[in-house]
C-alpha cells in the first residue's frame, strides 16, 4: 500500500507537470463550479447576514440558530433533494438542469449558504455597534452605515467566503447525485476521485487528491497572507 501511495504522489506530480489536459479540464471545472457557487451564495448571504447582524426583530434568534444548525447538513441529503426537484418528473424538471455544472453550483451554493450567513453574522456581531451610530452621526445614511460595518467586518467576510469555497470544492454528494459524474460534462475532482477509487485506480485518485488539497492549501495561505496585509 505504501508503494501505491508513493506511486500515486509521483503520478500526481507527473500529471500536474505534464500538463495533462484531462486533469486540467477536471480541475478547471471544479474551480468554476465551486467558484460560481460561492459567488451565488455570497450575493444573498451578505444582505441576509447584515440584517441578522444589525437588526433586532422577532424570529431573529430562530433564524440565526437554524442557519447555524444547517452548517452540518449532509451533502447527499441536499443532493437527493435537488435530484428530486430537478429530475425530469420533478417540480423544477422543466428547467432541464439535471446533470449540468450549473445545477451542481446551485446545489453547492445552498450547501454553503448557512456557513456564509453564520460566519458573516458572527463577524458583524463582533464589531462594536457604536461604530454604526458613529457613522450615522457623521452623516451616513442607514445603508452607508451598514456598509461601514460590513467593511469593518471584511476580514470575517473573507474567512466566511473561504470556508464556503472549501466546503463546496471538497463536497461529493451533490456533485455526484445531481451532476451524475458525466465524462467531459460534469466530472469534477471529487467525483473523479470517487470513480477512480471505485475502479481501484488508487494512484490516479491520490494524484487528484493531491491536486484538490494543494489548491485548497494554496488558496487559504494566499488569502491569509492578503488578510494580514
Amino acid at each position, binding site marked *: 500500500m505504501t508503494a501505491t501511495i508513493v506511486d500515486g504522489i509521483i503520478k500526481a506530480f507527473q500529471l500536474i507537470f505534464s500538463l495533462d489536459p484531462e486533469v486540467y479540464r477536471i480541475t478547471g471545472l471544479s474551480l468554476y463550479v465551486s467558484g460560481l457557487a460561492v459567488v451565488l451564495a455570497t450575493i444573498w448571504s451578505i444582505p441576509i447576514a447584515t440584517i441578522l447582524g444589525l437588526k433586532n426583530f422577532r424570529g431573529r434568534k430562530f433564524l440565526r440558530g437554524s442557519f447555524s444548525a444547517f452548517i452540518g447538513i449532509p451533502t447527499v441529503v441536499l443532493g437527493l433533494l435537488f435530484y428530486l426537484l430537478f429530475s425530469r418528473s420533478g417540480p423544477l424538471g422543466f428547467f432541464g438542469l439535471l446533470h449540468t455544472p450549473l445545477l451542481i453550483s446551485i446545489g453547492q451554493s445552498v450547501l454553503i449558504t448557512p456557513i456564509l450567513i453564520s460566519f458573516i453574522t458572527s463577524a458583524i456581531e463582533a464589531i*462594536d455597534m*457604536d*461604530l454604526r*451610530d*458613529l*457613522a*450615522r*452621526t*457623521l*452623516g*451616513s*445614511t*442607514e445603508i*452607508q452605515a451598514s456598509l*461601514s460595518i460590513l*467593511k*469593518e467586518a471584511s476580514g470575517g467576510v473573507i474567512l466566511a467566503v473561504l470556508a464556503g469555497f472549501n466546503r463546496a470544492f471538497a463536497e461529493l454528494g451533490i456533485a455526484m447525485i445531481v451532476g451524475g459524474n458525466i465524462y467531459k460534462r460534469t466530472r469534477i475532482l471529487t467525483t473523479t476521485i470517487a470513480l477512480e477509487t471505485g475502479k481501484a485506480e488508487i494512484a490516479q485518485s491520490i494524484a487528484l487528491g493531491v491536486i484538490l488539497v494543494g489548491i485548497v492549501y494554496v488558496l487559504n495561505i494566499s488569502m491569509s497572507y492578503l488578510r494580514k496585509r
Partner: protein
Amino acid sequence: MRELIKLRDMWKSFGEVNALQNVNLTIPQGKITALLGPSGSGKTTLLRIIAGLDIPTRGKFYYKGTLISGNDQANLRQKATLVFQKSVFFHTTVYNNVAFGLKLIDEVSKEQVSNKISEALALVRLEGFEKRQAKKLSGGEQQRVSLARALVLDRELLLLDEPTVNLDPKNVSIIEEAIHRVNQEKKTTIVLATHNMFQAEAISQRVALLIDGTVKQIGTNKDVFGKSNKHLESFARLENVFSGTAKQSEGTSTIEINENLKIEAAFSKSGKVSVHVRPEDILLSTKALKSSARNVFKGKIVGITDLGGIAKITVDAGRKFSIQITKKSLTEMKLTVGAEIFLAFKASSVRLI
C-alpha cells in the same frame, strides 16, 4: 436669545424604565449649554435624541422652530453631530477616521478634505498624527481625534457626551480650549453632557440640571450655581455644607457649627440653619491673613485631589473644608498633605440652604 432646540414634554422609555421624564428644555443658538447630572440621569439618552440617533417615546422636538418627526432624523444628523463618551474608531488611520464624514459630502474636494483635517487636528493639537493608526493612540489622543472628527464637519450643533471623563489634565485642557474656541470663533452651538460641576460652570453659559431623567433646574451659570439648592446638593453632594445654630447680631449671623468653629454669615437668621460655602470662594494662605474676610481659620491639609486644570484641597479646620484652587497655585504654594494652612472666606460667601 434665539433658540436652536426646544424640547417639550419629552419622554424616553426602555421597557418599563423611563430614561427621560417630561423633559422641557431650550437650547439657545451659539451658546454652550451644559447638561449636568450624575451617571444614569439621562444625559446620554437626551443627547442621542437631539443628535437624531434615537426617537423619543413621546414629546415634541423643535429645531429652529420646526417640529421634527421620526422621518426628519436623517436631516437632523446633517445639522448635528455627537462625540461619544467612549471613543470608537474605524480600523484605519487618524486621517481616514477624521475624513469619514467629509467624504460623504459630494461637493468637498480631496484638497479641501486634506486642509480641513489639518485644521481640525491642529485645533486639538494633534498635528502630524494623520498617518497613525487611530486605535493605537492613547485614551486622551483618541478623544481628541473624536473631537476633530466632529469639528471637521462644521455642523451648527455639536453634542459632546462627557468628552473629558477619565482624561489627564493636559488632555482635558486641550479639549476644553478647543470647545471654547469653536464656540467663540464659529459660533457653534454646543451641548455638553458632564457630571463635573466645575467643568459645567467653567465652560458653559447655560446649565440644565438633569436628575433621574428630569430637568430639575435650567438657567445661566449664575442662576444654577449662584445659590445653593436641594437639587444641586443632592446631585453634587455639595461640599462645605455645615449645620449649626445661628445667632443674629447687627445684620449678620454667627453660626456655631461646633465648639471650635463659628462661621459668620451676611444674613440675619436665628435658630437651626444649614449653610454652604463654595469651594472656589475660599482663599488659602500659608501665613496668617489680615484681610476683610470675616471667616479666617487655621487648619491642616488632609487631602489633595487632581481634578484636571484645578485641584481640590481638603483642609481640617474643626470641620473639613473643600477648597478649589488652580493647579498653578498648588505648584507655586508647594502645598502638601499634613501642612498647616490658613483659610479665609467672606461672610457674604456663606449661603443659606
